[in-house]
């Protein structure tokens, strides 16, 4: 297991951080979050192509760079830090992940190069109205029809589901239950019978949609009835990627709060000189660094094919859910009244912390998953 980044990885991080600070500043996030789409194609493609971000983890034979989760998670950590409004997580982690894990060679060759180049955006639609990310809870049906299938039902909490060009959908054969009868399908974003409704989200920087499928024609992705394993793998990967995005955001909040405390004068001195503030800052550092270590370890566990990867992913996600939210609460508190205003940027990360806390399952859920897989 690796416990440090290589100098190439550190250099990549430095370049990416500089580029995002320059080209995706907070005021850009504030502009984009007020739009319905939540991002703009031209601007995103330009940003993406300068470092080939969506290509990072896609295999070379499908037009990508073929890096691992170590590199992908650096991108996510930096994006979480900068709070970039872009369809990156949905496309590069969820959509591409499902295609890589489930698709045939021909399907990968057809779908991945467009994702790698940034032409195509994608997402994964799995959870339904119950808000459950376990495959067995799927009720949306896929019925054979002619040469393909038609989908009927709902999907909910679909990240960038209202704008994605390609939607990977988890569905089940009518009458099946549990992990049996599950298949993945690809659907075009503009398919007939598909209606997409943008949801009002607490976190305006991560858009969610509810999708209604009314006899929507769909193409099978991978093997019929065998989606449970590749889907579970995709969610594990997505959980680790989200965790790394979260620790990037948590560290940003911690640093911004510290900078504010150093600058804010009360009683004739900076509030950072008060012991209550110093002890809080030390506790925040501990929370964030522990969460970072677990996030990095989980990413390395994915790359190493560690047998405990499901438990590690859940351990890291549970830790990040608690740490990010706690850091956000402290950040608002340290900023005082100004921290509760819309004009101050703290709430952008506070809301991202809240949405990330429950996405793919909250801390309680992941602690239970970890215990089931690891301890007993």
């Amino acid at each position, binding site marked *: 297991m690796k416990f*440090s980044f290589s100098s190439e990885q550190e250099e990549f991080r430095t370049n990416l951080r500089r580029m995002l600070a320059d080209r995706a500043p907070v005021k850009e996030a504030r502009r984009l979050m007020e739009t319905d789409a939540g991002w703009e194609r031209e601007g995103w493609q330009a940003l993406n192509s300068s470092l080939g971000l969506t290509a990072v983890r896609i295999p070379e034979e499908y037009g990508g760079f073929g890096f691992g989760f170590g590199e992908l998670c650096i991108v996510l950590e930096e994006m979480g830090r900068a709070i970039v409004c872009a369809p990156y997580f949905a496309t590069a982690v969820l959509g591409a992940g499902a295609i890589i894990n489930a698709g045939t060679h021909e399907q990968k060759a057809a779908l991945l190069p467009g994702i790698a180049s940034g032409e195509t955006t994608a997402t994964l639609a799995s959870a339904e109205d119950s808000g459950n990310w376990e495959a067995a809870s799927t009720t949306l049906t896929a019925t054979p029809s002619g040469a393909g299938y038609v989908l009927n039902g709902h999907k909910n909490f679909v990240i960038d589901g209202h704008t994605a060009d390609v939607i990977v959908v988890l569905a089940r054969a009518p009458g099946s239950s549990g992990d049996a009868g599950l298949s993945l399908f690809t659907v075009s974003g503009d398919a007939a019978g598909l209606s997409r409704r943008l949801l009002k989200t607490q976190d305006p920087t991560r858009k969610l949609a509810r999708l209604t499928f009314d006899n929507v024609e769909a193409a099978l992705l991978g093997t019929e009835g065998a989606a449970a394993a590749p889907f579970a793998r995709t969610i594990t990967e997505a959980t680790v990627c989200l965790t790394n995005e979260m620790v990037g955001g948590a560290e940003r909040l911690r640093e911004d709060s510290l900078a504010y405390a150093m600058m804010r004068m009360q009683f004739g001195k900076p509030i950072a000189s008060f012991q209550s503030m110093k002890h809080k800052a030390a506790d925040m550092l*501990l929370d964030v660094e522990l969460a970072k*270590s677990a996030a990095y370890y989980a990413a390395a566990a994915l790359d190493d094919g560690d047998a405990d990867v499901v438990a590690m992913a859940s351990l890291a996600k549970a830790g990040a859910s608690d740490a990010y939210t706690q850091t956000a609460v402290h950040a608002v508190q340290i900023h005082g009244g100004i921290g509760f205003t819309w004009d101050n940027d703290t709430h952008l990360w506070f809301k991202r912390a809240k949405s990330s806390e429950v996405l793919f399952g909250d801390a309680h859920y992941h602690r239970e998953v970890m215990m089931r897989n690891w*301890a007993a």
Partner: protein
Amino acid sequence: MTELNEASVRAECRAWLEANWDPNLGLVEWRHKLAESGWGNPHWPSRWYGRDLPVGLVPVVEEEFKRIGAIGVAKAGIRVLAAATILAHGTDMHKEKFLLRIMTGEDTWCQLFSEPGSGSDVAGAVTRAEMKGNQWIINGQKVWTTSAHKAHWGLLLARTDWDKKKHAGLSYFIIDMKQPGVTVHPLRQMNGHASFNQVFMTDATVQPEFLVANVGDGWEVTTTTLMHERRGADALRSWGQQSDRPERAYAEERAEIATTMEPYKWYPQRAGRVDLVVPRAQETGAISDPVVRQEVAKLLFMSKAAEWTARRARTAQEQGRPQGPEGSLGKLASSHIARAAARIHTQLSGANAMLTGEDSPMDGVIAEILVSVPATSIAGGTDEIQRNIISERVLKMPRERTGDSDKPFKDVPRNTVA
């Protein structure tokens, strides 16, 4: 001079060990050979029992010792801090007199810093050292002194000038513990053990040549000792693997380990025994309780994440990169972990948590956890001091104004009960 690299060091060390290691030697006799060869502490200066080996290559030497089963020089206890301090600040006379017997394990050392009136504020020491006639006369009381009853020598911080400011009035001495003016009393702890001592010095004497550095340099020298203590906190109380082989050197080492480690036998319990949490939860059936499962999982997160954080810090150090903030957090993390573990052990034991000794779970081990954990957040720097250190040194937050920095120490308010 041949180039130093992993292969050349390995080959040279291996050849020397193969020619010289003999488990039938007495422990002291073997360590004399080791000290002369420089392989005992190869990172020390070649003039003083070392080989000037870069610290990064020391693990190679350790691997060779392990491979052949050779015993190393004495490395546990305060003697290691004494050696580091003497190497940094001592005179040639100090080095000649003390280093060899530290390495052979013939001399035991103790550290006389903390006092009843100065715990977190070590520089507030009020033990007096006064030059009378041609020697230093020491009067005062020290506390939390591990192994003082066995020690031959003590590292002593004492006040030599009351008109100077706090840090400037301190000096550092090496004191002979086996003299009539030094009395040692064991200090019984809330968990029933007595690992530490109180040391009373009444007109004890120190010869002038046993002052370390200059009069008034005491705080600087103390900082060196404390830095090594923090860096090697775990090593001071660990011995790696002992061998159960029958030869003389191994038998003598086992006896030495038993004596040196005696004060530390409750330390695993102090850390909370995270390793026992899941087995105890299974044994008691509480593993099926969803509330217990949540608490156990929270603890395992903290424990694993703290371990990985330490690994990140160590890896950065090994690669010669500047250590990030992750290096300063272990102490604070271990307090959280110990407290959480004690809470869960209580929950798992239920009414049995009221019992101790052979009437209680695991023949008293669990009970010992519950009354030992409070030491974790106090010993070696309280959590509060750790947070000050993290916020001031790592996060660069402003230091608080203290009440003792701008006046002679004699005018500083201090504890009336000492």
